């Protein structure tokens, strides 16, 4: 449209009749031949390929595609996966032979994570939050050549639905930015359905190719994400005290919003919250995040007005997404992108876990007690930053693995965004939140100084020797805005 400002617009020629369009269908998008597809995709050494993790440990697509890349002898791929799971241990040989050079992820666990910790990557690993990932893709910072989207169902034009198909996974929030911003988008599906496929998670206008395969995943692995409410009395005690913290904060009022992680203690908090809401005739606004059957029950009981769902953790959540109009899909960008208006900014309360926390409230959920990668931020950073009250729940004493340290192994979430830590031995409040300290003291909660609690725990457990690392940096822990929070080191 460069003629908009052209003063001599009559000098521009109209097209000749011979150039008039013909009616007819565009070319077929569907293929079953992965070799043919790859010829068209033009994947080269150094290409950036993306995947989502809605099929979790049941996913077959990531391994299938990357093995094809390996077969073609393509090297130095940057793997942009929203998360990687134990099933991706099949990719370890691809690190060693140089097929995969860099990894960008929001969560990584299993043997692949351990191999990376041991320095098997030729390049680097970048760990992002869910919101940070969406931000870097949406603003063009992270350019993706091809997005392979595992699709529980698609029609022949590429309308993808997460709730249809035998391997249904529900909401597909983590794949949305990839589908919109990647150079090319391939829907990989085992369930080709009649046009139009609806409700649609990703629409045909974003999809270039459809690869039909035998199986995109294993249902049992897809819905294995659900944890049960803990039965451990100490975990339950922590959950009960967390509810008291929420009550004392004054945020538990009509229309409040809430999110919790899927850990056993976090789920117990949700379950106690439900009892509390029923007892006090309290109705919340929205609940958000990864959605479980516990939350869909509360939606159906009228305890929450709506659910914002970025991923479904169980079959109940998938069923609810299908039938409840107030069970809403959200993309990772709408969930937590710091550069746009996001759901996390409207959150009152979030309940989160921690592997380690230091006396400045910095949290590590990325590496375990051996210093090896075994997790990642997910939405941790995003919700801690956005919510009015971020609460970490964790046992202080659990098999002599220290929770509170002078310095955490890798900072995943900065302490300036973490408000409260609830343990079985007391409630620690970030000194930045004097308002909460005052409220909790008035409510006679067992508020203790985090430094004192650390000393007590060291008295009982002894002081842990620091984890032995090499001085080789293998990657970085990125903050949601793209700034570098911390380094990740190779483990001895």
């Amino acid at each position, binding site marked *: 449209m460069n003629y908009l400002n052209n003063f001599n617009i009559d000098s521009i020629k109209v097209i000749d009749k011979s150039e008039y369009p013909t009616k007819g269908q565009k070319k077929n998008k569907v293929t079953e031949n992965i070799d043919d597809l790859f010829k068209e995709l033009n994947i080269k050494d150094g290409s950036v390929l993306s995947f989502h993790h809605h099929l979790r440990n049941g996913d077959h697509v990531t391994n299938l595609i990357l093995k094809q890349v390996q077969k073609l002898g393509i090297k130095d791929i940057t793997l942009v996966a929203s998360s990687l799971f134990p099933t991706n241990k099949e990719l370890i040989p691809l690190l060693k032979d140089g097929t995969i050079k860099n990894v960008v992820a929001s969560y990584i666990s299993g043997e692949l994570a351990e191999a990376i910790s041991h320095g098997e990557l030729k390049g680097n690993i970048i760990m992002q939050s869910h919101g940070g990932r969406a931000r870097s893709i949406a603003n063009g910072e992270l350019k993706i050549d091809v997005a392979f989207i595992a699709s529980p169902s698609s029609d022949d034009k590429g309308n993808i639905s997460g709730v249809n198909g035998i391997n249904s996974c529900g909401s597909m929030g983590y794949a949305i930015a990839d589908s919109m911003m990647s150079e090319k988008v391939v829907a990989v599906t085992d369930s080709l359905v009649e046009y139009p496929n609806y409700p649609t998670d990703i629409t045909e206008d974003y999809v270039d190719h459809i690869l039909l395969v035998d199986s995109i995943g294993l249902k049992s692995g897809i819905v294995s994400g659900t944890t049960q409410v803990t039965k451990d*009395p*100490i975990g*339950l*005690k922590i959950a*009960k005290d967390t509810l008291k913290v929420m009550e004392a904060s004054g945020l538990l009022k009509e229309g409040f919003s809430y999110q919790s992680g899927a850990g056993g203690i976090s789920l117990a908090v949700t379950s106690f919250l439900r009892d509390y809401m029923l007892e006090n005739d309290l109705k919340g606004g929205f609940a958000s995040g990864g959605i479980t059957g516990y939350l869909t029950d509360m939606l159906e009981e009228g305890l929450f007005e709506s659910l914002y769902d970025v991923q479904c953790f169980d079959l109940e959540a998938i069923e609810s997404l299908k039938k409840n109009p107030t069970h809403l899909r959200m993309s990772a960008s709408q969930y937590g992108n710091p550069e746009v208006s996001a759901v996390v900014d409207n959150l009152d309360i979030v309940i989160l876990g921690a592997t380690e926390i230091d006396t400045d409230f910095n949290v590590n959920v990325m590496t375990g007690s051996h210093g090896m990668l075994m997790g990642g931020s997910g939405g941790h950073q995003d919700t801690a930053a956005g919510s009015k009250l971020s609460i970490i729940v964790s046992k202080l*004493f659990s*098999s002599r693995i220290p929770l509170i340290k002078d310095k955490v192994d890798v900072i995943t979430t900065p302490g300036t965004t973490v408000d409260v830590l609830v343990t*079985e*031995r007391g409630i620690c409040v970030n000194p930045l939140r004097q308002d909460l300290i005052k409220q909790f003291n008035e409510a006679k909660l067992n508020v203790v100084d985090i430094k004192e609690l650390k000393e007590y725990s060291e008295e*009982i457990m002894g002081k842990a020797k620091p984890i032995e690392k090499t001085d080789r940096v293998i990657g970085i822990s990125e903050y949601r805005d793209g700034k570098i929070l911390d380094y990740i080191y190779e483990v001895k």
Partner: protein
Amino acid sequence: MYKTLLFMPGNNPGMLVSSDVLGTDAVLIDLEDAVAINEKDAARVLVVEYLKTFKNQTDVFVRINPLDTPFFYDDLDAIIDSEIEGIVLPKASVESMEALDKYLTEKNSDFKIIGLIETSLGLEMAMEILSKSKKVIGVLLGAEDLTLDLGAKRTKESEEIAYARSKIIAISKALQIEAIDTPFTDTDDYEGLKKDSLNAKDLGMTGKALISPRHVDIVNNVFAPSQAEIEYALRVVEGQKEAIQIGLGAFSLDGKMVDAPIIKRALNLLKMSGDYKEEYDELLK
């Protein structure tokens, strides 16, 4: 007074460490039923080491093995120097209470005793058994073993132990010791637990033993006096103080005469709620 007394297995290190954060008034560390026969020695050492290391924030009692087992004196020898509140004596009988009292007296121990009544003979002799030692501060009804002994069917409705409960309660009041109800054994039935606890409280039990940490809050709530009850009791006590000061024999409150039983009930309630003060000791003299 103990509203809740939670049993904790003596051979489980993880549970011992966290036993004092569960909100229970007393912890009953168990060397008896919760410990397998070939682990008795190890559990004993573990409990002693635990008590040596940790200052448990809650009152701790240890349930030792009964007199008719080879472990009775081994258990006592092991824990006699530990910092605990006292001993729970299982299958309490005249002989075992005498033996325990003799042992503790010889050792100059100030351990208290909770007698566990769980046999037919024990129930019928409870008055005598519990009178055998001045160290007895409470009686605990053990309904599982008792109903087995009685040949009765153990049910959630607990009609089969109505007599035992009432008898234990009467004796406890006569001896001015605490009456502790038998545990509710279905760990997942919270409604049943609440009903059972209310029933026990209404009959006159002052607290309840528990086998599940998840039962603590519910039972605490049942046995805790309400705010209105506490306020009324405090008014009764203050009224009586004033009456004594001005030399009145009796006084009235809200248009009702306040007599000794009402004062006594108020004092008991304040003991239960933790609002009791030593100066109240004078009020009934």
